[in-house]
């Protein structure tokens, strides 16, 4: 094993351990760390769910250079699908798969006509779709519970383990997120995934190399949307109650914002972006109502000076401070 690969796997194991033990109270084991309570763990879980949805946006925006303004709507599709199916007694695993599949199919149906026309029109079509999906969630009370929402969504039993306790559910979501992250990583490293990057860098050249640009764009859009569906399938049992508001258009804007802030086209970008959108407000509670104001202001600064997002900013700072370290970046 080469030194850098060793360092990578060590880092990965360390990160995994930290994420697994973050919410656990370690004082019983003689360590001065109290863990997280119910709410802190809830927020960590929400961060993971948000990151899954953001990964999908990153695939669409960062890797294939398109724009989506409907990720919250796909989250909604996944959340309502899972909620309705599990309430009907169908096992969570099936509901989870159905949520992703439905989002994928809707993504294809939306993408086929939209990609026929010019670049920004996919963004416009997704915007219209986001509003319409939200109207359906609101108005079809017989199905979605309308504005009253759906409550009593059960957390799944996995391999005989009930994930109802907040810590168990966190670990469950962590495991699912890890699998989905691995899938995304594998997909981007495969020859198929490398074509995405080629496509983003130079569509004309990619086309001349025999890559069907439209098919790739369509598939990336649908897969990215499916990640939204998966995130929704996790969101419903996390909150145990869903109503239309988290799936509104303004939320879709926030997903796009967080991916670009984290770093569109960088693998860690969505996690950083989701952390800033979900974890940071908890830290910055003292800023109270001004949080979004400050956030918006910082986003504008970031876009003006470092449109690559925070990941790019960190890399740039590092390159400036440690000229040598910059070279070994993977």
């Amino acid at each position, binding site marked *: 094993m080469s030194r850098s690969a060793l360092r*990578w796997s*060590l880092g990965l194991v360390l990160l995994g351990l930290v994420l697994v033990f973050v919410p656990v109270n370690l004082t019983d084991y003689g360590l001065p760390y109290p863990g997280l309570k*119910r709410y802190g763990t809830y927020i960590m879980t929400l961060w993971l769910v948000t990151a899954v949805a953001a990964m999908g946006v990153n695939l669409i925006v960062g890797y294939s250079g398109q724009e989506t303004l409907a990720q919250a709507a796909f989250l909604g599709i996944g959340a309502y699908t899972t909620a309705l199916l599990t309430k009907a007694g169908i096992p969570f695993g099936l509901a989870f798969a159905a949520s992703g599949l439905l989002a994928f199919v809707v993504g294809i149906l939306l993408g086929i006509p939209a990609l026929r026309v010019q670049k920004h029109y996919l963004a416009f079509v997704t915007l219209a779709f986001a509003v319409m999906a939200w109207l359906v969630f609101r108005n079809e009370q017989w199905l979605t519970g309308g*504005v009253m929402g759906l409550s009593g969504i059960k957390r799944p039993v996995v391999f005989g383990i009930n994930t109802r306790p907040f810590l168990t559910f966190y670990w469950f979501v962590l495991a699912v997120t890890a699998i989905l992250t691995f899938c995304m990583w594998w997909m981007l490293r495969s020859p198929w995934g490398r074509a995405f990057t080629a496509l983003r860098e130079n569509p004309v050249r990619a086309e001349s190399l025999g890559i069907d640009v439209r098919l790739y764009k369509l598939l990336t859009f649908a897969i990215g949307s499916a990640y939204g569906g998966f995130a929704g399938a996790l969101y419903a049992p996390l909150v145990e109650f869903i109503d239309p508001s988290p799936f509104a258009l303004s939320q879709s804007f926030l997903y796009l914002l967080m991916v670009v802030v984290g770093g569109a086209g960088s693998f860690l970008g969505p996690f950083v972006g989701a952390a800033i959108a979900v974890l940071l407000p*908890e830290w910055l509670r003292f800023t109270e109502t001004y949080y979004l104001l400050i956030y918006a202001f910082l986003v504008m600064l970031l876009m003006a000076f470092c449109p690559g997002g925070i990941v790019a900013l960190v890399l740039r700072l590092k390159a400036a401070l440690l000229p040598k370290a910059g070279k070994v970046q993977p």
Partner: protein
Amino acid sequence: MQFSKLAVAATAAAIVLGSPAFAQNSVLLPVIIELSGGGATVGNNWKNGVELAAAEVNAAGGILGKKVEIPAVDTQTNPGVARAAIQRALDDKPVAILGPIYSGSVKASMQLTADAEVPQIMGGEAGDLTAQGSKYIFRTSFGQNISMPKLANYLRDGEKAKSVAVVFVNNDFGKGGRDAIIKELNSRNIKVAADLSTEAGQADFAADVIKLKSANADAIFIYLNEEESARFLREAKKQGLNKPMIGETTLLGQKVIDLAGDAANGVKGHVGLTVDAPIPAVQEFGRKFQAKYNYKPDHNGLKGYISVYMVKAAAEKAGKLDPKAIAAALHGMTITPDKVPGILMEASWDNTGEIDRISFLAEVKDGKQVITQTLPKLKN
């Protein structure tokens, strides 16, 4: 390399997230309330009402000798956020939760307070909130199951209306009210000339008003939230819709009058709670509130104020600051102003958390709400 740094950052994040906040020797009453979004007006009224009461209670020695703490959290008028906020508040072992007001937010969160066995004193008016079997939910104002029959009586006897057009807002509050009033109108043989749904946050009521003009009912029953009520009344005046406009507490509230201007004149209806009530203690509350916050409170200011005194009275009856005992004490309790002046008007709670109290018929004249009649308590 990158990952290990991330790990360090994640650990730091975790340590900050898990910090306890509140001292144990106080009475913790988290205020989980609408401070932004569609419910901003009602939520701020409630919050200020709570603050006023808490300041008085603390000045008089607190509850059972302990000071009241009232940290406020904004639900953004969003049921999911309200639910998360209550979950967070319950981690700190509160004595009771005060809020929210929007029935949808209450419904999304009431299971949590029931599981944690902490009383939730809220402002929701949807009829079914008290029918869910929670032993920990308490109203501060009438549910629609009580206010709508009173209103239907008024439409029949006061307005002598043979047909009524109903305009409601398509949310938990509006739908609940619409179902209740239509049931009451049908049982009194009053025709429903139009049944118009509008959206929460709707900005433009031109189409709705035009439809109502052609419906030609004897009276129009308006059941919208504050801002929408004002927009509707302004549009109605602009378009010359000259029919009696009848509503429930909200429509005659101060905020609607402020926003609608002279378009609110002539509006009539039933009012569960109002600072204009012909009761000296209530009017005195209105003056104190106005002096401190520089605006005239609506019924939600009263509801918030009363909620603190409900906890105080129940805790003193139970003799301890135990959430479960306080909830048990409130069931079947009648609080009278001669014992607890802060309750302002005699009020009783039954075993489901439903409230009973006197109420009023009112009318808006020259930009002011004027009480025309006082209706007695249902049970004495």
